[in-house]
């Protein structure tokens, strides 16, 4: 450890010096002809990119467009098969993230990489070359504080990371890379996990960073308005290639979406008119605890009829997950009743609920919705292993399951080299399509869809929404849980904003006003309209 530092430190200081006088407008990072091939895919195909200091250069692309690969190459996690990277005109090669960091590249991951039990300043100093020697925390604190003030981050450096909100954690990550002397900041899906207010604040800071001469590269899949609001330049990737390179002032949301997806995109979907039928789900005074033993769902009551979509709108963590889990049988209620199809199922086991016609699409696709080490065929079997159509005398008829999987892959457009690949090789959107396909193939009478489009790209989001409406047309009762207010308003017949475990009101979609629902999601009381 010590020996490595002795060798590294002077080199890094020299590079810092060399990077110190970067002029705004100068090309600080250039990528030429980057190509990276994985078995079966050309992830990056001759990608060229120029980043100027003082500029925000957004990279747009759907899942699987090659963003992650490009990002990993820029950060030294992957080595390109061919192509070059230049920093201030000097050719460089990153053998590891340490090389990239030393060359002034700072990466802020979508999934936070902080130590929750440590304080903010400890996290910022962790891995810092100077922290290996004599640690002058007080001086570091002052320097970080100055840095935070400069870019408008309001953060308590002595707070422990687990106490922070997602937005604050992200600020810590950004401060950490800036404090290491990053001149080029790579942000992976920067606004994804943030609340609207946090996102706005972050964007202000990002602009401040660019104005102070840093080069900023956000990688973005969705939330196109974000891109249009702050970036100076946009590069769009599709299938590993650069398909558009333009200045933001020349771009429109629709144009960017079409470039990303490669075809015209429907921003609005027409809701089919389905006459609501009899009551499928009746929830009465339901309460339950979360994993920490705190009451997370408080006296919730509502009903859903055949052919209706009941949309729960709210920021995650307000009891939506607990609600979905109680209905799916994964969590025990502390009080209240659940009546499905006229039967009291409050205490019914999970398997029985599947067999009765309840389908659950969990928000946790990887952790709960699929088995990464299993093939797609065996993942489809997860919702069919109890079905007599597929199992006779305890023996699984794998020919039937394969046939079913083949049909579902085609019908739902799951992009995969085959059905024997492991599920963990699928992109988020394709995995969600597979889960959706599997659950919908059961033709459930009640479909619980938790955050069904979260993290999906435009094409996949559009597809999932269409399929939910298709289920509605087949007279399924649907409970839609979403953080995306537009989505809830677009799809639902009834909208129920949720805040701190309570449903704040149930509003018919045609009478719903955006401002009212937004206010109710934030816990402000609004005049209720009875269902």
């Amino acid at each position, binding site marked *: 450890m010590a020996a490595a530092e002795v060798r590294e430190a002077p080199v890094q200081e020299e590079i810092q010096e060399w990077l110190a006088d970067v002029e705004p407008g100068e090309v600080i990072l250039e990528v030429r002809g980057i190509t990276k091939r994985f*078995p079966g895919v050309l992830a990056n195909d001759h990608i060229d990119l120029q980043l100027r200091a003082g500029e925000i250069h957004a990279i747009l692309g759907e899942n699987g467009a090659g963003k992650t690969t490009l990002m990993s190459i820029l950060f030294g996690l992957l080595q390109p098969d061919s192509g070059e990277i230049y920093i201030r005109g000097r050719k*460089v090669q990153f053998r590891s993230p340490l090389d990239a960091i030393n060359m002034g590249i700072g990466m802020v991951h979508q999934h936070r990489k902080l130590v929750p039990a440590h304080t903010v300043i400890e996290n910022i100093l962790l891995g810092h070359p100077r922290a290996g020697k004599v640690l002058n925390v007080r001086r570091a604190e002052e320097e970080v504080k100055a840095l935070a003030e400069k870019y408008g981050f309001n953060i308590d450096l002595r707070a422990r990371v687990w106490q922070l909100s997602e937005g604050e954690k992200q600020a810590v990550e950004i401060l950490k890379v800036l404090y290491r002397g990053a001149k080029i900041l790579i942000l992976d899906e920067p606004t994804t996990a943030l609340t609207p207010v946090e996102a706005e604040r972050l964007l202000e800071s990002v602009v401040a960073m660019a104005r102070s001469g840093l080069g900023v590269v956000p990688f973005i899949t969705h939330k196109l308005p974000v891109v249009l609001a702050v970036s100076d330049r946009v590069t769009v990737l599709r299938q590993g290639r650069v398909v558009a390179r333009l200045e933001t002032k020349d771009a429109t949301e629709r144009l960017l979406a079409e470039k990303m997806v490669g075809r015209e995109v429907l921003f609005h979907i027409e809701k089919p008119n389905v006459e609501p039928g009899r009551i499928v789900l009746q929830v009465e005074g339901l309460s339950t605890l979360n994993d920490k033993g705190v009451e997370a769902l408080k006296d919730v009551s509502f009903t859903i009829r055949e052919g209706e979509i009941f949309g729960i709108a709210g920021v995650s963590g307000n009891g939506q997950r607990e609600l979905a889990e109680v209905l*799916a049988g994964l969590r025990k209620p502390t009080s209240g009743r659940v009546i499905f199809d006229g039967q009291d199922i409050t205490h019914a086991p*999970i398997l029985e*609920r599947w067999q009765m016609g309840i389908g659950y699409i969990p928000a946790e696709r990887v952790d*709960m919705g699929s088995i990464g080490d*299993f093939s797609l065929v065996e993942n489809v079997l*997860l919702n069919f292993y109890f079905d007599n159509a597929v199992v006779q005398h305890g023996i699984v008829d794998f020919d039937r399951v394969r046939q079913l999987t083949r049909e579902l892959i085609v019908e739902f457009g799951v992009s995969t080299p085959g059905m024997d690949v492991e599920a963990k090789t699928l992109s988020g959107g394709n995995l969600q399509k597979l889960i959706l396909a599997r659950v919908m193939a059961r033709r459930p009478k009640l479909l619980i869809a938790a955050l069904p489009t979260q993290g999906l790209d435009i094409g996949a989001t559009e597809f999932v929404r269409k399929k939910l409406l298709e289920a509605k047309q087949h007279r399924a009762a649907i409970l839609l849980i979403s953080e995306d207010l537009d989505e809830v308003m677009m799809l639902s017949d009834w909208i129920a904003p949720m805040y701190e475990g309570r449903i704040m009101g149930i509003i018919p979609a045609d009478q719903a006003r955006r401002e009212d629902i937004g206010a109710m999601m934030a816990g402000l009381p609004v005049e209720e309209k009875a269902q």
Partner: protein
Amino acid sequence: MSVAGYRIRLRRRTTLPGWEAALISILAVVVGLVLFSLIFVLAGVDPVAAYKNIFSYAYTNKYGLTLTLNRFVFLAFATLAFIVPYRAGLWNIGMTGQLYMGTLAAYAVVYAMGGKTSPKVPLNPYVVIPLMVMAAAAGGGLMGAIPGFLKGKLNVNEIVTTMMLNFVAFWWVAQMIKEGGPFMNPQGRGESFVLPYAAYAPVITSLGVPFTLILALVLAIGLDFVFARTKIGYQIRAFGRNPLAARYAGIDPFRIAVLVFVVGGAMAGLAGYHYFAAVPGVYKIARNYSYFGDLAFYGIICGLISQGSAIAALPVALLFGGLSVGGRFMQGKFHMKFGVDYALLGVLMITLVAFQFFYRYEVTLEKEEESLHVAVHR
């Protein structure tokens, strides 16, 4: 790392064909044997002659082969005892205790039928032998049910419970066979009474191995079939790979935990039956019964090397069974110090486990690119 203009790279594998896994394991054995030849050299023994003796005694000598096969059957059952819970993502470190309990249960059958009094007690072999086999499986299964229940109901760590129960069972055996115990040999000697002739298991005479050999092979094939093709096998595997997803799909974690430990324990119980009640010339719980309790731990290694496949574990069990026999023989023949057989198995275990690295990564050579690395070349 780079050598002479080539870079050595590790790539994560996405798939591992069976033959490649087999090749890697064989390579691991070869490397292990080469490494161990250092010990022979240091002890002044010609490694080639030593290995020749080990292998020819273990696999071609009539007496040696019988010993090898009997140990192989024992290890095969111990391996199955590990594999069944392993497929459910649970670790059975308790095959030792389970096999002791299986053995005691089998002896309890004979004891209850009055078989302790004399070797010539007229018992009906068609009754007593099947009962012994079933009792051994039930005894091991019950012993397995304890950690299974504790895991399923209260989420108590199964590694700890199975391991601790090994000690319980060890002393229980001692209690039963030593002074004053009900299974005590009439002559004392710290061992159990000898089975009556009627309880001797049928033997495949050409090999000198009891019918349990066939039972072990059938069970291994059957288990692999169950895991690959049946509903319950699928449920166990799904639970093993992602317990949360399994629960989401309605698979009952409690049922799976109890089931795999009962079945695993039953397999271990059969190992106990095989060695202490069926192998010709043993027919008693010998004083050194703990030697076989320890040997059963090789079931863990066999199961890990075969990645949970029962059939693929058989050759590994045959190798370990043979080397433990051949190693002891060679040690005597060359007057080497005690423990050569243990050391040999230990080294092989290490190389086999170390080579599992190549199950996950493959090594490739690539021509070095001629680009500057600014951080170094300034």
